[in-house]
């Protein structure tokens, strides 16, 4: 306060020295002075209020746009990682091999691939899908991945879901399944396995994936981090209350995802 008063005082004295100032007005009575000065004060308050309001508006718009862009980027990333050309290529090669022998799983596999592609093309555009849809796609995906490996691969997939129509953003769970195959099964020499458990109770989703893994080389953990940080970013945009954790053990990799579905933003 003292600094402020001193500041204005020195500015004014500078103005007086340069003959550039408004004279101090004296008013005959206090109420006259009040009325006269009040006009300026109210005017100033309004002016700054409006400026501040406009500033806030612009900031808010900017933030909303930023959020939308980030959201879209994440979605795009996911679509990219999902319709993974490598997966498509592999699956087609496998189906070719099956068809060549005229083996029974061939038509079924083509149908599964077609279902996955339809899902990617038409269903993932929306904000939500029913959890049962994601489950079906997960099943198709697992069946197709299974073609690639021999009988030593053990897959255990179970779920306990209170409401199959529960809305869920598309492609939220599949990246973790994809990871399990990409970094787990395909890297394991002996007894590869994938255990998947999905449950939704009291609007709390819990998704646990365990897969065989051989712990070595740091480069692998870096690769996993890219996929996981993508997922984490998407979760941050969608939910307030979630937990995603991974644990790398000697020969096992565990990913746990918990989401309080009621905390949707």
């Amino acid at each position, binding site marked *: 306060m003292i600094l402020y008063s001193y500041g204005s005082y020195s500015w004014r004295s500078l103005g007086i020295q340069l003959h550039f100032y408004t004279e101090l007005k004296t008013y005959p009575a206090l109420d006259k002075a009040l009325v006269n000065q009040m006009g300026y004060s109210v005017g100033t308050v309004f002016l700054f209020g409006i400026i501040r309001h406009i500033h806030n508006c612009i900031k808010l718009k900017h933030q909303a746009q930023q959020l939308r862009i980030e959201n879209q980027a994440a979605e795009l990333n996911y679509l990219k990682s999902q319709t993974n050309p490598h997966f498509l290529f592999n699956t087609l*090669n496998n189906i070719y*091999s*099956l068809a060549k*022998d005229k083996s029974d799983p061939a038509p079924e596999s083509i149908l599964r691939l077609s279902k996955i592609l339809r899902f990617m093309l038409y269903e993932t555009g929306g904000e939500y899908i029913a959890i049962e849809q994601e489950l079906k796609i997960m099943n198709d995906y697992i069946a197709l991945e299974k073609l*690639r*490996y*021999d009988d030593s691969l053990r897959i255990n997939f179970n779920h306990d879901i209170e409401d199959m129509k529960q809305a869920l953003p598309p492609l939220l769970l599949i990246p973790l399944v994809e990871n399990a195959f990409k970094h787990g099964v*395909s*890297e394991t*020499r002996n007894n590869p396995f994938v255990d998947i458990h999905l449950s939704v109770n009291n609007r709390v989703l819990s998704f646990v994936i365990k897969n065989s893994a051989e712990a070595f080389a740091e480069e692998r953990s870096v690769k996993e981090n890219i996929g996981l940080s993508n997922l984490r970013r998407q979760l941050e945009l969608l939910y307030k209350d979630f937990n995603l954790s991974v644990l790398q053990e000697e020969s096992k990799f565990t990913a746990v995802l918990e989401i309080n579905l009621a905390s949707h933003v």
Partner: protein
Amino acid sequence: MSEIKCIIVEDEPLAVKVLADYISQVPFLQLQGTFKDAILATDFLRHDHTDLIFLDIHLPKLKGMAF
């Protein structure tokens, strides 16, 4: 011309099948064995000799490039 001896190192059984099919169609290729990872192939190569290896790049543990 003597036959070229070859092995397949590939972890996906269906791909092995396709490759083995091709090899059987080529008259001068003789398939000695197939291995589902590079470490098993190394064991084989310790006591046997081969001319040609059909090698996958993405293999469990020991990558094709490293092999």
